[in-house]
């Protein structure tokens, strides 16, 4: 796949945190580890990082998440979409946690304007982080499976969805 120019940051500046809307999604690239097989759930909650990087759905479509920082396309990776609402409202699924314990920050990179970073997870104990990772899993959706490509129709719909998600960021 050709690297999309829409991902380049150029002169664009970072958006403030409040522009990340609850209706948005965060896309993460997950490499199936050596012990993963197709019959098992994907991705694996044991592989979500405390400082997980994401592509923001307002400025990226899922498949673009396969490009790394040096524009290399990783077809072997799958893409999971995490609901911003779930990330912010952790209390709804796990009463142990308050809402907004985790923060999402828009931190554009030269080759990825949509780049966002999760923070706040490192302040928890490891068992608590395990609970948060499991919480994430409840509302994720698998956008693209590893080694699978998308067709033109899905590409079109994903681009349309990206613009809708961008409108959300301006409405609230």
């Amino acid at each position, binding site marked *: 796949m050709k690297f999309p120019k829409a991902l380049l940051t150029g002169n664009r500046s970072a958006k403030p945190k409040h522009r990340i809307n609850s209706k948005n999604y965060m896309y993460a*690239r997950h*490499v199936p*580890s*050596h*012990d993963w097989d*197709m*019959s*098992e759930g994907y991705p*694996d*909650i*044991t*592989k*979500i*990082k*405390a400082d997980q990087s994401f592509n923001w759905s307002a400025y990226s479509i899922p498949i673009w998440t396969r490009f790394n920082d040096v524009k290399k396309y990783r077809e*072997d990776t799958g893409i999971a979409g995490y609901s911003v609402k779930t990330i912010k409202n952790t209390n709804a*699924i*796990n009463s*142990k946690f308050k809402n907004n314990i985790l923060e999402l920050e828009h931190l554009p990179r030269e080759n990825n304007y949509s780049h966002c970073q999760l923070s706040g997870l490192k302040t928890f*104990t*490891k*068992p*608590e*982080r*395990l*609970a948060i990772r*499991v*919480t994430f899993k*409840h509302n994720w959706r698998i956008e693209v499976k590893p080694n699978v490509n998308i067709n033109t129709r899905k590409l079109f719909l994903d681009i349309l969805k990206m613009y809708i998600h961008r409108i959300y960021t301006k409405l609230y």
Partner: protein
Amino acid sequence: MIAFAYDNITADKAVELPNLSCDIVAVAPVSQVDIIDENLTYYLSEDEIIKQVGSLLHLSYSADKKHILQEHLNKIYRIKFQGDFWHDDELVPGPSIKVISFTKRVISNLASTNIFVNRITQSIEEGISLIFINKEKTLFFEFYNDGDIGYLIEDRIKRKIIENGEENSFNEVVNRIRTFFNQIYEVS
């Protein structure tokens, strides 16, 4: 219904039973029988069901129990062999020798009471994750390189975390896992 489970009869005899209208027949010890019921189809994929039933069939034979345990130990050996280079994206330290030994001890102990781990994998948090499934509940145990031990029990259907905490010793870990397979959890 996908499968029936019978106790005290062999798989060969079970398939000869009249009025048996299921696709897969499994024989399992009493403690494992209630894993198989019609609700299984609601939360497990076909592959998972076949895997579960397959593992129950194995449990009927002590030689196969040894085989399953050996496979799990081999998996731990492979994880040890991968070392720090198991993650394709970045360098994430693999489990320490202490964690490897601890994991081997736990799964060997549990195997003696017919409890087998469903999945052994590496954690991004630097250590080993064990995943156990009992009906609609999943128990995650993570043994970390710094000596911490975390666990979590979730209800996959109701999407609720039932328990989440830490354990401090081998006995606590083994008891927690045994309790998981014996206890009925109430989820609000």
